[in-house]
């Protein structure tokens, strides 16, 4: 009995940290609609700043708490700076474009933190005055954890007071419900947003600094926390602080007791829980329908242009690319092969985002399933390459068929996080099922058949298959299917009223996108010769998203350009400098600022403006 009580208390201490971080995220999202990938970075830098301050001043209780508060405030200031310097310039871009900007910030912060604090893990002092433990029913329990348990509700209460008893809080709530009406009434949204970013990032920094007495500060903290914080936000219901609190409590308890029943479940328990909650409740535990975010391309003026002479351009590009082996060396060919594969991967995601308005955070699931489909056929059935390649889109399509049925019943960020949940579940299966998938050591020896083994031959094969698939995707975009999808995106109600079964079309699009990503995954498996769970993991999904956004979501060619630019940039910068994340992040931030419509969106804007001048 006493053991269960202490285990529950341990879960509460975990929940407190989770709540602090995710409360900041939910406030920022609720008001600004920004999917702030950099939230975890503020948590990490908050922890590093807290560590430095506590090392210096943490000898006394006042020094310790002062240090924590100072670290939190510093993160608030940094957050406000990010709003003013970057995000403010992007409010007129498509909704998700800020996500790309914050992704650039994540990369920059990772390298700057490594540069400032060095690569080693840093273990800080324990909290002064709270070093020991007390016995609770004969079980020792750390004092500091008790304080954390108290801090959670305290912060929740303070935030409640702030939002319900101050003018600023009222304005923030007003902006959360109707941003445009609030600004029409004379409230400067820019200043409000700066304040919200300050508050949100300060909370992240507070969460980070409070971790110093509990665990070592590392360079991996940012990614580890941000995904979980998103889970809490979505499970709780977006924009709902009480929901985030409740979700943190539940997740903390689940983790504490889950490991007693089934220790291996640590990999996936959080995502399983999220999937169950989202399947049962469309807006999370305490979210409300009216706080639903708008779908992605709300500010698109020209939905999708067919483009003049698009076919001619495409054929010309194909011809140039097919001629590449005549001049390019082996490595250049391999890079081009990867670019072509990733272009298909990005285009398949673009089908969902650009046409369907369905932002997926878990698209790597289908890419990885395709790769595993091929690899498993080769490994367990000795399948020849063509058969294995054919298996890739089939397995991925089947996976997408099942997951899609659940996902298309949700929209906005709920849809996005449900796709992420499925991706994580697939990932954990690949990671854990040693007998079949080889676990994290993956499947080796997935090399092409002899006739396609040459770099040029495999490149041509890839070009032919991806070119065909891309042509099909484009056909779909301009077929009635594509128009129906766009109708559902722009106005679900009106589309339903003219007899379009929006959900069914979205489901079909999900399966089509999954199968296309699967083909890309199969080709990728043979290009690399091996398959690992990393192909299904979050960074792979983020890469796809970055490629689509970089290219611009309003054109069919966007994802292709985005894939090419991102992949070439990453691989070239990586081989040139150790600080490649810094360089890549800065380039992304610069691209976002200079091309707020994406690269292809920018080019077509340029062309149309030149055209107008000539006329």
């Amino acid at each position: 009995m006493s053991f269960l009580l202490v285990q529950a208390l341990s879960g509460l201490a975990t929940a407190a940290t989770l709540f602090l971080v995710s409360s900041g995220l939910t406030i920022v999202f609720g008001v600004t609609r920004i999917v702030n990938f950099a939230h975890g970075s503020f948590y990490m830098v908050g922890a590093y700043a807290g560590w430095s301050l506590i090392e210096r001043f943490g000898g006394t209780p006042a020094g310790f708490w002062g240090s924590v508060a100072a670290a939190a405030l510093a993160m608030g200031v940094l957050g406000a700076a990010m709003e003013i310097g970057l995000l403010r310039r992007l409010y007129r871009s498509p909704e998700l474009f800020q996500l790309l900007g914050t992704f650039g910030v994540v990369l920059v912060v990772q390298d700057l933190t490594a540069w400032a604090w060095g690569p080693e893990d840093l273990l800080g002092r324990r909290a002064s005055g709270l070093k020991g433990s007390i016995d609770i029913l004969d079980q020792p329990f750390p004092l500091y954890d008790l304080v954390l348990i108290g801090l959670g509700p305290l912060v929740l209460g303070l935030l409640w007071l702030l939002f319900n008893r101050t003018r600023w809080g009222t304005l923030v709530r007003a902006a959360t419900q109707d941003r445009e009406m609030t600004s029409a009434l004379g409230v400067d949204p820019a200043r409000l947003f700066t304040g919200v970013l300050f508050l949100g990032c300060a909370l992240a920094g507070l969460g980070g600094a409070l971790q110093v007495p509990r665990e070592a500060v590392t360079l991996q903290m940012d990614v580890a926390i941000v995904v979980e914080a998103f889970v809490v936000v979505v499970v709780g219901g977006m924009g709902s602080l009480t929901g985030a609190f409740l979700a943190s409590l539940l997740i903390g308890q689940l983790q504490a007791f889950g490991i007693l029943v089934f220790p291996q479940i640590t990999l996936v328990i959080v995502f399983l829980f999220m999937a169950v909650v989202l399947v049962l409740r469309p807006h999370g535990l305490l979210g409300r329908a009216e706080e639903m975010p708008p779908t992605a391309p709300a500010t698109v003026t020209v939905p999708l242009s067919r483009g003049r002479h698009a076919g001619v351009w495409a054929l010309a590009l194909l011809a140039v690319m097919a001629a590449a082996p005549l001049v390019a060396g082996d490595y250049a060919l391999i890079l081009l092969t990867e670019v072509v594969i990733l272009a298909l991967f990005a285009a398949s995601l673009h089908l969902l985002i650009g046409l369907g308005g369905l932002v997926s955070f878990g698209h790597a699931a289908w890419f990885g399933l395709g790769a595993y489909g091929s690899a498993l056929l080769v490994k367990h059935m000795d399948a020849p390459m063509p058969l294995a390649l054919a298996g890739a889109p089939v397995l991925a399509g089947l996976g997408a068929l099942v997951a899609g049925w659940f996902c298309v019943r949700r929209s906005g960020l709920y849809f996005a996080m449900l796709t992420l949940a499925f991706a994580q579940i697939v990932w954990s299966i690949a990671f854990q099922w040693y007998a079949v998938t080889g676990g994290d050591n993956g499947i080796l020896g997935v090399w092409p058949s002899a006739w396609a083994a040459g770099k040029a031959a495999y490149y041509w094969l890839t070009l032919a298959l991806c070119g065909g698939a891309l042509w099909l995707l484009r056909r779909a975009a301009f077929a009635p299917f594509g128009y129906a999808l766009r109708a559902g995106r722009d106005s679900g109600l009106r589309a339903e009223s003219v007899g379009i079964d929006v959900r069914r079309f979205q489901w079909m699009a999900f399966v089509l996108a999954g199968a296309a990503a699967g083909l890309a995954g199969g080709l990728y498996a043979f290009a690399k010769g091996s398959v690992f769970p990393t192909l299904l993991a979050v960074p792979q999904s983020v890469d796809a998203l970055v490629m689509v956004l970089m290219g611009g979501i309003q054109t069919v060619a966007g994802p292709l350009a985005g894939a090419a630019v991102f992949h070439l940039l990453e691989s070239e910068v990586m081989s040139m400098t150790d600080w490649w994340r810094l360089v890549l992040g800065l380039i992304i931030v610069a691209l976002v600022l200079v091309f707020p419509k994406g690269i292809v969106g920018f080019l077509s804007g340029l062309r149309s403006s030149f055209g107008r001048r000539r006329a």
Partner: protein
Amino acid sequence: MKHRHPTASPTAKSLLSAALFAALAAALAAAVLTTGPAAAESAKEPVKFSGAPVRVGEINSYTGLPAFTIPYRQGWQLALEEINAQGGVIGCCELQVVSRDDAGKPDDAVRVAQELVTNEAVDVLAGTYFSHIGLAVADFAARNKVPFVAAEPLTDAITWAKGNRYTFRLRPSTYMQAAMLVEEAAKLPAKRWATVAPNYEYGQSAVAWFKQLLKEKRPDVEFVAEQWPAQGKLEAGPTVQALAAAKPDAIFNVTFGADLAKFVREGEGRGLFRNRKVVSLLTGEPEYLEPMKDEAPEGWIVTGYPWEQIDTPAHKAFVAAYTARFKESPKAGSIVGYTTMKAVAAAITKAKSSNAEPIVDALAGLTFDSPVGPVTFRASDHQATMGTYVGTTTVKDGRGTMKDWHYADGANYLPPDDVARKMRPAE
């Protein structure tokens, strides 16, 4: 609501953007189509070399796991400088290293390996930390017939179940380190054991070997609890509590890095280690022990690297050179990096060639000197006999270190040649 987009008119800004874009596109095109090797990172050239340089392509997770890989890089840099100052390899040729980051992803590692082989024309591949990345590069090496010296991945598969002709591994494997610890664990009176290990192949095979080998020596032990936290995401409080609830006599720990620090801190706070012996993999390595400062655990039986106490002349010379060069103390990664590069140089010199097949033939059975003593790459399974230090942790002058340690030679903890050969796929 519709917005006029700022880029819809040909303003100065959009022209600037066009120029930027053009520059970017040109840079990319140039980057893709260049096939010539970039400037190699080589040491100063105090010696005149008569032959063509021999090139090594080095890959590691420099951004993914800097705490271990940065000391590793400094280690091989030191070795490289020494090798070239003493006349290079084969007595004629400069050894050049082209180093790359794999970002912690196996598919990136394979691409980088390809780039090193085709663009940089490297003769040998070396490096890698994570097991799955090591395996991916090993598979690439076999397919492209390039010798590969895997420095740090610990998985048994790289030399056994998925071993190949071109791949050799330096560090003592999971099996070897588990076997070294079992020797000590079997001497303990403890009968009830609990295990805690990160939930991936390294953790799982370490626990599996530990259980199997300990049961062989001590049929009376039982394993009463196991915890499998996700790597890097240990929920310390609940995990510690769950282990304590099983009331084990001793604990076998495989967690490392930030997880380990959390586990130790929370375990001390909750009295988990009171009157219990802990046997722990890698915990004695300075990378993991030193960040814990005076909170480093007392009395754990560990594998590690007590660098300040090893007083063989070879090792003292290494420590002196390393601290003089980098103004910091060596870590376990440093000595692995240093020895890796020395092994590569020894193989090339023995082969008297920069071609793949002679180097592979030279590596099989190669014996060379390292700071820990002579090391041999076994011809049977391509595993080096480099050992590690087994001892007890303690806190001295406010920092964690090891006491009562001895060097466990890897050769004594490997299965016999014929058994090992049978575990490898047929060639």
